[in-house]
Each structure stands twice: as structure tokens, then as C-alpha cells.
């Protein structure tokens, strides 16, 4: 038990410039606290999320990946977040096929006003991944090549 509790996961979070990145700013302005395990990447839109980004993050050692975007119907670019949703669902399937727990990839909607909600999502995510333990997938026999192949396959379906 204690082993798992000592584990500090590293999570890469992809944010949308218009909503979730601003939500993260807002959480800061409001001094809402959340664990430091998430490192954010700013994209213009969750629709920009290339499945290879997620694979890259896992390959580089992230224990989990969080995708965040505008609420359905509120996309800055009309409806690109639905595409993110689709890619997310596909990615989860692929991850499971590769032996990675689906919980390691999480999608959360957060509008620019939802700093509190984003902080809560992050906190919950960190807790979930802490219970899952580190992602030791290289030790499980998977190779980085598998990643890129899967990523290519994903790119094909992503559209």
C-alpha cells in the first residue's frame, strides 16, 4: 500500500488555448491548489490533438495523459472538440489493445471560467493514476516501434 502512495505520477495535459488553458490560468489567479504532477501543453484547440502527441507522451515516460477542451457546443472553432472526443475514444481503444489501462487517458471539458472544475479534474486524475501505479510498459515488452505504428494507424482513422 505505502509503495503506491509514495509514487508520484507524471501526467501530460493538453489544453485548449481558449478554454482549458485559461481555466488553468484562472485556477492560478484564484490560488486554487492542485498537485504538481501535471505538466501542460498549450494547443490552439483540442481538435489539434494529434494522436501521436499522446503516444509521444507515453513513450517519453508520462504515466498518464489528460486531454482538455471546451464543452461540447462551446468550441472556439465551432465543433472541433467533437473531433477530439472521437480521437480520444479511438485512442483509448488502442491503448487497451497495447496493454495500457484506459484510465491513463482522460478527457475533461473545462470552459475558461471553470478553474475550480479543472483543478478538481486534475486532482482526481492524479489520485486515479497514483492508484494505478507507474506505467512500466517498456518492461512489459512493448517497444517504441509499436507506438509509432499504432500512431500511424490512428492517424488514418482520426479524420
Amino acid at each position, binding site marked *: 500500500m505505502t509503495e503506491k502512495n509514495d509514487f508520484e505520477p507524471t501526467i501530460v495535459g493538453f489544453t485548449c488555448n481558449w478554454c482549458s488553458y485559461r481555466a488553468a490560468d484562472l485556477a492560478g489567479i484564484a490560488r486554487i491548489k492542485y498537485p504538481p504532477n501535471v505538466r501542460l501543453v498549450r494547443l490552439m484547440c483540442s481538435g489539434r490533438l494529434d494522436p501521436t*502527441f499522446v503516444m509521444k507522451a507515453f513513450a517519453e515516460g*508520462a504515466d498518464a495523459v489528460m486531454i482538455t477542451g471546451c464543452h461540447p457546443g*462551446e468550441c472556439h472553432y465551432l465543433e472541433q472538440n467533437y473531433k477530439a472526443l472521437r480521437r480520444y475514444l479511438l485512442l483509448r481503444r488502442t491503448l487497451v489493445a497495447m496493454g495500457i489501462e484506459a484510465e491513463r487517458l482522460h478527457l475533461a471539458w473545462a470552459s475558461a471560467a471553470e478553474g475550480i472544475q479543472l483543478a478538481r479534474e486534475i486532482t482526481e486524475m492524479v489520485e486515479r493514476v497514483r492508484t494505478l501505479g507507474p506505467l512500466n510498459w517498456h518492461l512489459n515488452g512493448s517497444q517504441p516501434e509499436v507506438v509509432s505504428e499504432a500512431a500511424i494507424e490512428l492517424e488514418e482513422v482520426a479524420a
Partner: protein
Amino acid sequence: MTTKSNSHPQERIGVYVCHCGTNISAMVDVEDVAQWAADKLEHKGVVIARDYKFMCSSLGQELVEKDIHELKLTRVVVAACSPHLHEKTFRTACERAGLNPYLCELVSIREQVSWVHTDKVAATAKSKAVLSGGIERVLWHEPLDPMTVPIHPATLVVGGGIAGIQAALEIADAGHPVYLVERDASIGGHMAQFDKTFPTLDCAACILTPRMVEAGMHPNITLMTWAEVENVDGYVGNFDVTVRQKARKVITDLCTGCGICEEKCPKKVIDDVYEAGLGYRKAVYTPFPQAVPNFPVMDVENCIYFDTGKCKACEKFCPTEAIDFTQEDEIVEFPVGNIILATGYDLFDARRVSNYGYGHLENVFTSMEFERMNNASGPTDGEIVLRDGKTVPDSVGIIHCVGSRDMNYNNYCSTICCMQGLKFAHLVQERTGATVYNFYIDMRTAYKGYDEFYQKVLEEGTRFIRGKVAEVTDVARLPNEEGKLIIQAEDTLIGKQRRIPVDMVILSSGLEPRHDAKEVAKTFGISCSADGWYIEKHPKLDPVATMTEGVYIAGCVQGPKDIPSSVAQGAAAAARVIGKIQQKEMALEPVRASVLEDQCSGCRICNDLCPFNAILFHEDTMLSEINPALCQGCGTCVAACPAGAITGTGFSNEQVLAQIEGLLMDMSV
């Protein structure tokens, strides 16, 4: 480890870590971060790493400029606050020093590190990771030039309510052409239906009609009523607008607005729009006496001639032969540089709250019905009477928050209903002397002069009951309830259920987005919140712009608001547009996607994905091309291109992948 060693050996990077007073340095060991960057990331090209008290101060900026000159820096990374605050500051500093502004990267260690974490060691470690990500990323930056597009001087204003009228007049007065397109037969909007306006009790028509006339006569305004925008193509500065001018069946060039046709028309129809269902109009009609323009329109659905082929009374009596039964819709096209949407709101349909009995109990009225009843030109000539058309009520109950602040209907506060309810209380008391009860959840009288108005209504003796009304019923329990409407509510200040018998109930209904708000948003390429209000670019700092360049919003289309706020927004949107027009051309942020022709397979997957229709397919070359002026830089196509043939400046795959690598530089893979 897949990380390449420095793939850009020629680059020389300057790193600046800001203390932000103690905002950052209290939680992040900024000296350590800077020292670490200088020591450990030298192989990435870091030639200097400094920490400084206030990087955004002029001294801080000069530090960057000096280093660019003296150390021949080719890239700059600043670890400080959110890029949304100071990205522009440091880009400009680079530009001053002769470095392309897009070779500068800002990473946030304040909003996303020092302010949200509580463990200094962990926060410092995260700062290093974030900085490392920024350094990896900046290596892949490319010098970019902002694009410029010309601005067409004409403006389209959609919606002729008070917000749209205000916007149109401001722009026209500044000397620029305006197309004012209105769906109804006259401009004026909801305000034209009101009698008095809170809190000053100005007569709505007295203050509105001069502005309507001004808009109708203005040489710079092309007024298109009974018309709807069908399509918008193009982009900021260069929109192509298609408008459907619906057939009035009246030749406006010949019509003098004498009103004889309306007088002679034998068909009486309940007017659901202007009279809110409380009064009648004819099948050929001008909605109200002060309508602008004053030409009538024909309601084909109710016209006897269109139904039976007989009648034509209007045509017979028209002195100028202006009636034309064969007139068809017309499609009009014109270019504009900017667009202001002021399409307003719909009133909440109170029939949906079946426990309030509207549509079922005859003496339950909506706020709009009451406005019309109050209006001297309305269906009762300004008399406040029951549905029978003659009885003056002795007691009136006014219910606030109808359809608002309620998860069963709309969750938001419609903001105007409290003041509207108070205005009604005053008017009822003034004109009938009836006893008035106002039922409210919270009394919201913010803004100038509003609470004073509440004081005045209190003074006049209106009885206030704090409690959301549970139901309105005509089922009497006690003799004094017989023949009355009984309003049942908890008086929450005494904690008892009360039943108040009254003669008349007025529902202070909330405001809703237009029923077609979502489709209209799509036509104009802007985004709509889940409840249907249009989303402003920034809720505080940019309330009238939208995320779509060149499209602005004003009035209730952005959210419920009162007349002063709508007017202010109309003027604000106009000011933004005038500013753009006077620049003659504008620079666009060069965050754009482009197709690498040699890699494009012509599969066209990207074509349909683009929300802005910016991707064009050339049949001859079988290649897709992105129109940089239409592209907004979302990057969906970049992510979706199966051939990897689309690249997005500012957010290229290389940049993001490098950043991920940098972010995770401490992970032993």
C-alpha cells in the same frame, strides 16, 4: 532515450526566469531554475540564463534586448506569467532588438506553478520541466510575418432592435456605410413594444422612435426590413453577404404608407408578435403606427386572396397601385468588412410552467402582454384590465423568476425581471390603485438608480413576499378565494405557506436565446454556449468581440441584459468596427495551417473538417490549399492529415513533440 541532441546547433538561446516580486519566487527557487538551465541545457543552445525581479518591467525588457544584441541571441524563452498576459510584451521587446517576435516563447510558472502548488521542491522541479519544454519548443520556432488583409468599409448589422440601431447609427455617423438587416417588418425590436422603461419611467416610444427614424433616414444606412441573412462567406475585412429580401407584396417605391390597405383589409388576425397575442392586426399591416419603414407587409398565410383567390380589397383601394400579389422573394448580395450581430432574445414561453396556469387560467398574463396592455397604443388603449377587457383588478400578483434560475427551464438569472417586476408594481399601483404583491427569490437591483427604484416601490406600499411561487390556481378553499386566482407560496421570511387571492397575475418571464440562435451562429461562424447565448471573446476584457475576427455581438444576443447595457454594447461594437475600418487593413496573427504541396495526396479529408471552409481543393492539380485569411489556426486539419502534409505555424508537430520531450526530460525512459 529518443531525444535528439541539439538538432539546431546554430541557435543561441537566452533564458529569463522572473521572480514576479515574490509571486513566483516564494514558491519556486528561481535562481536554481536559471542556474540549472545555464548548466544543464547548455547543450541545447542556452547561452545565458538569468533570473530577475520583474521581467515585464522596462528594465527587464531591456535586459532581453541587450542580450540579443550583445550575445547574438537567436531565441528567447521567458519563464514568467501566463502568455495571455505578457506574450506580446516580450515579443515586442525582441522585435525592438531586431529579433523576429515569433522566436520568443513564454512559459507559465506563475498561474500554473507557483500559485497552485504548495511544495517548493516539487514546484521548482515542475518549473524546470516546463522551462525545458519551452526551450525544446522554441528551437523549432520559425520567423513569421503577420499577414495583412484590407478592410472593406461597409458593415453589416443584423437585428434592428435598440442595440443594432445604436451600432448602425454610430458607424453611419462616422461616415461609413451600414446595411441594417431586420427580420420583422419594422425596426425597433422588443423596446418598441414596451410602454415605460425602468428605472426612469421614460416612455419607451418617446426615446426610441427618434432613433428609429434617424436610422431609417440616414444616408449611410441601407435599411433592409422583412429580410434575413442567408449566407456569409469570406473572412474579416472581406465578407460576402447574401440576404433574402422577403416579398412584402407591396412595392415600396410606390407605397406612401397611407394605411388605406390595412384599413380596408377584411381579415383580422391575432398579432402574436408585436401585440404578444393580446391584440389584433390585419392580414396586410404595419406592425405599429411609428413603424420604420412605414410600408406594410402582407401576411400571405392569412390573406383571403391567397386562400380563396378572391378579395383583393387592398389592391382595389390602394391609391398608388403599390400592391403586387405576384412579388417574389429577392436575393441581394453585397460585400462588407465587419459584422455586428444584435439579434436579441426570445421571451421565455410561460406556458411551459404549467403550475402557473398561463394559457389555462385567463387572468394570468405574461410580462409582454402586460407591456402591451399598458401601452396607450396597445389593445386596451393603456387600460389595465382583466381578460374580459373591462374589469379593473383590485389586487395583482407579480411573480419574479418565471423560467429563470430554475434547472427545469433556464438555469441563469435573466437580470431584467426583478426591475421589470418592480416597474409593473409601480404601474399597477399608479394606474389602478390595486393592491400589489411581488413574489421574489432574491431582489436583484444592481446598477445605477435601480435600488432607488426598489425603495420607491416599497414606499408606494407594494407587498413583497420572499418566496418562489409554487402554483397559481383557481381552486378556492376559503370563501375569500372564490372567483379569484390564488397564488400559493411559502413566505420564507416567516416560514409559513401563504395563499394570496388576487384578480390578476403577471409573470415576469425571463429571456431566452432566439429559438434559431444555433443556426444563426453557424451562418456567421461564431460559437454559441450550450444554452444558446453567443460567446464573447473575453467575458471581461473583450465583451463585444467574438472569437471570429470581424464578427461582433451586441445586446441580448450575448446574454440577458437591460436597455442601457444593450445600448452600451451596440456603441462599443460600433467603436470596435470603426477602429478596424479606419486602419484600412489589419494584421492577422500568423498562426495558420498550410499544405505542403509535395506531400499532399489530394485525399480531401481535410476539406470537410475545416470549420471555416478555408481549405480549397484544386481539381486540376488534385491538391488542397488553405486560404490563410480564412484559416483561424485551430489545427484540426494538421492533426487529421493522413499524409502529414499540413503544417501549422506556431503549433507544428515538431514544436509540440519537442515540447513534450522537454517537459518529460526528467523521466528515465
